[in-house]
């Protein structure tokens, strides 16, 4: 691993170099909520000054850039009784992520396990993932962040370079030669011993700020034991089955596919749409039977996929602890509370 350090103003120069030929996505402020707190979102940026590197979190993850809500998997041109199929992975150019927090980088690493490194990779994801340049940035833990419990508070790989704010300068960790070459264009220095101390001090300060926790000890086993627990029913009574938790989740990748014919009958398309296991349509099969007609069983299976099934398959959870689902849930269903209630739940 290579470390460098550079003056803050140099970051703008780096942005200009990257943005000159590439599409850059970064956190920007898109409005204020009713308490006048800023609301952030990842959007395409062309002006360095619009990027808010001190953002708390975004409502939606950057997921739509590699797993769009709707994506045409193939399109068809129909002429007489013939048709021609076109497949487009919808990755026309590299994408630069300017300022992803460790949780969101870890989310990509988790998605990689399923969509990139599996026996059947998903080419639509791979094409986008392989064409990314990621600049990670350290964050200030928020009251709803439980990434530390999920082991996602730091990112070890899955990015090109990672910057840490050391006051007047950025400490940068370089992971790829692409990043190394880009950084040659700005003024950087070899960090000295005192910079290492500053870095460690800043990391220790950040660690003190984590407040939300999830006890993951033996969680996969406990979930197995508590499958019939009444607490699921209690959370199900609150759940609106609106799918928001999955939509704001950086790792939810379940989807449905729809085939539609355009009204002119000259073209057709096969479209993928991100779905949510909390929706009543999700477990409905051909013929109309629904395997999980009840809200509580759908909610439960979402937790089982994240904290049990994925753990069994990959020895890690599919949750990064970003806390977005709990923050967006109108019913106030939050992962730390749900897990705590299962651990301490009454048995039937």
């Amino acid at each position: 691993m290579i470390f460098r350090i550079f003056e803050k103003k140099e970051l703008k120069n780096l942005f200009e170099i990257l943005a000159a030929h590439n599409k850059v996505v970064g956190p920007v402020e898109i409005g204020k909520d009713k308490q006048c707190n800023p609301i952030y979102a990842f959007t395409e940026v062309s002006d360095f000054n619009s990027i808010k590197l001190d953002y708390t979190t975004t409502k939606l993850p950057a997921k739509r850039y590699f797993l769009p809500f709707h994506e045409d998997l193939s399109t068809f041109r129909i002429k007489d009784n013939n048709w021609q199929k076109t497949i487009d992975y919808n990755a026309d150019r590299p994408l630069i992520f300017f300022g992803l927090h460790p949780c969101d980088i870890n989310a990509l690493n988790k998605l990689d396990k399923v969509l990139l490194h599996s026996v059947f990779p998903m080419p639509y994801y791979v094409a986008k993932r392989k064409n990314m340049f990621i600049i990670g940035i350290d964050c200030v833990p928020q009251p709803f962040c439980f990434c530390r419990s999920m082991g996602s508070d730091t990112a070890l790989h899955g990015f090109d370079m990672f910057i840490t704010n050391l006051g007047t300068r950025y400490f940068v960790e370089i992971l790829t030669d692409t990043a190394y070459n880009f950084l040659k264009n700005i003024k950087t220095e070899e960090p000295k011993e005192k910079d290492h101390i500053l870095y460690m001090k800043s990391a220790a300060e950040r660690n003190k700020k984590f407040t939300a926790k999830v006890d993951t000890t033996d969680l996969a086993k406990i979930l197995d034991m508590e499958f019939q627990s009444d607490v699921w029913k209690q959370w199900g009574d609150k759940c609106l089955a609106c799918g928001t938790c999955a939509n704001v989740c950086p790792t939810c990748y379940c989807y449905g596919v729809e085939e539609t014919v355009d009204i002119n009958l000259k073209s057709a398309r096969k479209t993928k749409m991100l779905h949510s296991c909390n929706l009543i349509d999700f477990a409905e099969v051909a013929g109309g039977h629904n395997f999980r007609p009840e809200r509580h069983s759908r909610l439960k299976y979402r937790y089982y996929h994240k904290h049990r099934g994925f753990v069994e398959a990959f020895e890690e959870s599919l949750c990064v602890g970003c806390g977005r689902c709990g923050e967006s849930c109108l019913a106030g269903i939050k992962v730390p509370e749900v897990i705590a209630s299962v651990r301490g739940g009454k048995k039937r």
Partner: protein
Amino acid sequence: MKAKESESKTYLGIPLYRPKVAFFEFSSCEGCQLQIINNENTLLDFLSLVEVVNFREAMTEKSDDYEIAFVEGSITRNDEAERLKKIRKNAKILVALGSCACFGGVNQLKNRFNNIEWVKKQVYGKHPIDTAPVRALEEVVNVDLRIYGCPIKKEEVEKIVLHVVLGKSIDIPKYPVCMECKANENICLFDLGEPCLGPITRAGCDSWCPNNNAGCWGCRGPAEDANVGYMKKIMKEKGFSEKTILERLDCFGGFAQFPELKKKGKH
């Protein structure tokens, strides 16, 4: 009667049956029908799929020889009920078009009052008028298909009609508007302090109102498995008054079957 082969379209070389369709309206603003003719970009393609034989808002000719009847509006008089029964007899498929036809729509607001005579006096004064409590189409005749919305979403109607013609299944979302609203990357209206029925209202409108910073009023009726009871509690906790919540839930009649709405006014 079979549609003329020469006029019908083909799909993958196979000629498509071109059904005869008719449009009718009862108590309504006729805005749903207007939505259909509004869609100029695809209107010709749409019209080539079906043969319109009756459409008062769009053409002079009239015929009772039709297979699919699209019926807009609610039933507020006895003569309307009789006319609807005749349409039902003529049509193989009867489609309820829009919120008024599906649930009574805005018109059914008067049903909240116990005394219809009091309502009549408030609205029309001494002017004599024949009006009964509002009924949705399905309270009078069998309805085969419901197209929700106030107004209907023209893209959805086109898709439904296309699927009828192609013999594909018609899948109307069972999930709520939030799903589409999130895909459209809107800021949640509750974050902005606005009330919204998106979490319990059936999707399919592409979150039309929230896209324009207006909270959902539930015009498409409840999503399947809508948690109306808890939604009411959430809205109350967020500081919205009972009046604000009921006004929304009551507005289009889609939520009328929920126990949370059984309370009637003092008149």
